[in-house]
């Protein structure tokens, strides 16, 4: 067996960031202990059902996994070691600046972490306030240093396109990340989902109307699309000059520092996701767990397993995901897997997009052009049956 990748979801956060769509819950949640019990139980059950497969990459995401107490991290590590053959090439943990003290960092080192993904978002006080974040600009550098001091690779998340952001401010953020010398960067335009999400149920009193109001007001004052496109192009240019390769729509890496775990998503590999709101792709089928904590816990306690996703169109999905990468898609090689009608459809759609300057062909390989990257949905939407 080739092995799988593993995603572990830790929903707890110190505060809820108002733009965030992930399955999150307060760190002080009364369900925290039961959640961890459920998580451990799910890990054991899945490990047994899958026949204790080898785990090649692990990604502990959230939420804010760096908030876990050392003993909780240890318990998770033991559960994983029992359920799977854990010999990973990459183990990432997500952290927020100002949460990683010495003891926690040690616990994660013992867990086997090789890579730290830091939710910096911005180095500007104005930016952090506009995004409703609680940490301070000065918290980021120490967190980066702490990770490096114990030999971890470090990735930073930055968000652009917040209300009032100027090109100069964005250049300053990019410059700060570059001068910290991080290995990997994810830069996301601020996207605000205006329909209700399930995870809000985990936040007592933090009702959807308040969030929706914040999002509507923020969306109304965000820079317009044209300005956001300019900021995106700036990231491409500045990071390229600093030696970062724009290898995925929203991800940049120094040579040899691409995320192995995320590559599994983009290449339609096999992964198991455990925890609330986690998604899996195993044996060609996609599935997920509910985002609301009580629903998740109940499912695990009743040993109900994951919820199957409605069947999509595998060819279109695979093409969409691969196109996100700078390596694009080799349509000749994919055709064998999809069959003739599907591959003819995908090829036709890509030819149309090429005519619009969104796709570039080199032989049988199609990749997004720079314009295609920021208009990727225009390409993807045509791939759907």
């Amino acid at each position: 067996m080739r092995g799988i990748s593993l995603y572990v979801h830790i929903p707890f956060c110190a505060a809820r960031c108002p733009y965030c769509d992930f399955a999150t819950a307060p760190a002080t949640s009364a369900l925290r202990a039961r959640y961890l019990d459920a998580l451990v139980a799910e890990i054991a059950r899945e490990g047994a059902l899958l026949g204790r497969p080898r785990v090649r990459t692990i990604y502990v995401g959230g939420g804010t996994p760096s908030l876990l107490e050392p003993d909780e991290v240890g318990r998770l590590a033991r559960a994983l070691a029992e359920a799977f053959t854990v010999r990973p090439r990459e183990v990432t943990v997500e952290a927020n600046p100002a949460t990683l003290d010495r003891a926690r960092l040690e616990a994660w080192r013992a867990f086997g972490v090789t890579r730290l993904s830091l939710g910096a978002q911005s180095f500007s006080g104005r930016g952090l306030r506009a995004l409703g974040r609680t940490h301070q600009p000065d918290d980021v550098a120490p967190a980066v240093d702490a990770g490096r001091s114990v030999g971890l690779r470090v990735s930073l998340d930055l968000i652009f396109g917040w209300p009032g952001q100027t090109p100069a401010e964005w250049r300053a953020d990019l410059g700060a990340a570059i001068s910290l010398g991080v290995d990997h960067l994810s830069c996301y335009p601020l996207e605000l989902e205006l329909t209700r999400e399930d995870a809000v149920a985990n936040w007592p009193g933090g009702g959807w109307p308040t969030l929706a109001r914040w999002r509507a007001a923020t969306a109304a004052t965000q820079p317009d699309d044209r300005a956001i496109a300019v900021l995106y192009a700036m990231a491409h240019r500045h990071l390229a000059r600093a030696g970062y390769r724009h290898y995925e729509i929203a991800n940049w890496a120094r040579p040899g520092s691409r995320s192995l775990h995320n590559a599994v998503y983009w290449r339609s590999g096999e992964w198991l996701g455990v925890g609330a709101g986690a998604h899996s792709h195993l044996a060609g089928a996609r599935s997920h767990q509910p985002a609301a904590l009580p629903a998740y816990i109940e499912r695990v306690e009743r040993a109900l397993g994951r919820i199957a996703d409605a069947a999509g169109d595998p060819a279109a999905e695979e093409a969409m995901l691969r196109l996100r990468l700078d390596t694009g898609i080799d349509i000749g090689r994919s055709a064998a897997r999809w069959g003739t009608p599907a591959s003819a459809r995908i090829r036709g759609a890509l030819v149309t997009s090429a005519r619009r300057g969104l796709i570039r062909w080199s032989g049988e390989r199609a990749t997004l052009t720079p314009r295609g990257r920021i208009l990727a949905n225009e390409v993807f939407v045509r791939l759907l049956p």
Partner: protein
Amino acid sequence: MTEAQERIRNFCVIAHVDHGKTTLSDRILETTGTVNARQMRDQMLDNMDLEREKGITIKARAVRMAWTVAGEPYELNLIDTPGHVDFNYEVSRSLAACEGAVLLVDVSQGIEAQTLANAYLAVEQGLEIIPVINKVDLPNVDLDLVREDLRKALGFRDDEILLTSGKSGLGVRELLDAVVARVPAPTGARAAPLRALIFDSHYDQFRGVVAHVRVVDGEVAVGDRIRLFATDKEADLLELGTFAPDPRTRDRLLTGEVGYLATGLKTVQDCRVGDTVTLAIRRALEPLPGYRPAKPMVFAGLYPQSSDDHPALKDALEKLKLNDASLIYEPEVSQALGFGFRCGFLGLLHLEIVQERLDREYGVDIIATAPSVEYRVLTTRGAEVAIDNPAMLPDLTTIEEIREPWMKVTIIVPTQHVGAVMELAQGKRSALAEMTYLDPTRAMLRYEMPLSEVIVDFYDQLKSRSQGYASLDYELEGYRAADVVLLDVLVAGQPVDALSTIVHRERAQHTGRALVSKLRELIPRQQFDVPIQAAIGGKVVARETVKALRKNVIAKCYGGDITRKRKLLEKQKAGKKRMKMVGQVEIPQEAFLAVLRTGEAPS
């Protein structure tokens, strides 16, 4: 007159939608023992789909019932009437088949414009009217107010007015007794050659066209060869009978009776509402009065969403026409929309019904252009041409005069909304002909107004400005000279013929601006700037730009949640499907109806 003929009572119920006609009719069927309670439920379920969904009765039919008064048996025929303003002519034919009408008014609503119009029509045709106030079981109702409506509008005396409740059954027996006592028996000469009035017809797969008729003179029997006056068609009667409410076959229908004739004809075009049936060998000299061919008033282009569907659309229209004599269509080509059909309808509701049936029964996805009226254009060379498609308007220099249809419009509205309604009508080039108060709470306004103004969202506006209380009726008044111009729309520099409209000169600029700004909202951003212009005779009067799309990406990868992404994309995709490529620009279906909505107050 024979004894049997003396005992026939033909009547219908005139009522506004929701005033309780269906409920009361069911009670009548039950009370006369025509159907029992269980059958009634079944029947109601059967009819529910069509009638409930449309909120109106599309096809009239008749039910034969027995009722005994003072030991004497009577034959009652209850003839259904369509309940919408677009079907005025059909209503008038149903009325012509009756000697009496029950005028049903919901006590909590009062009389509505259309009901009143139909009641006037019935009075003109010499029908005996029985005024009935319905739903009297409701609490806190003001009977006197409704009595005053009936007194003022139609001159009834209080002691003529009956009270019913379809819900509790109260007053139903009294109503039936009143029908027998007040409605005259049908006159008509038994010995004369057959003359039967067709008040409805529908196509049946097994029997061909079934005509619903009232025998006015003479009689008709199975096997007779019948002849239709207007169309000169002949047919051998395979079957005839009455409905009770399911079909009961009979050997013959006699003078004064109501029933159906199975003609075996292949299309309702051959057997039209209002036409007269006679016998081929013993023909009547004259048809019954009042026939007129269906006359479409509102026109729109219907185009298949995808050109592959053109044969399917043609086929569907052909099939619809089998059953709908008032639908007309002919092929048309639009530069923007390709091959399609210009269709004529009785009114907006008729258009909606056809559109919906095309979608639901035939699964053809269509784009409809904004509805237009028929203009009569007098050319400088003295010819008169009818123009039902704005894009076909001849060159202005060759036009002597353009004339457009005007309507007589009746609106009944609660007094507190009179101001709002008058304001609305003022913006519609209308002239107030008359205003009267039906009672202290309700006013009746009569206007003369161009039809082109009525079809451009007048009804919706009327409803919203009166909080839903105003009711509307209209009929053709005639053609009048119009000072109109052709307003063209250019998208990305290219004229889109399907968006052309004919508008009043004074308002052209305003409409142009409103249309262009509406289109700017509706046309999604493309990968390049799209200018939208409105022009009159080549001169641009309004311009807007749809700014190019700069960003459309879902950047974040939610722990491999592809399903979420796919859903978002599928939503975008569904949007794209409803688009039509015009040149390089994707234009959504709604845009072709935008013309309709330019009257909205700026928000």
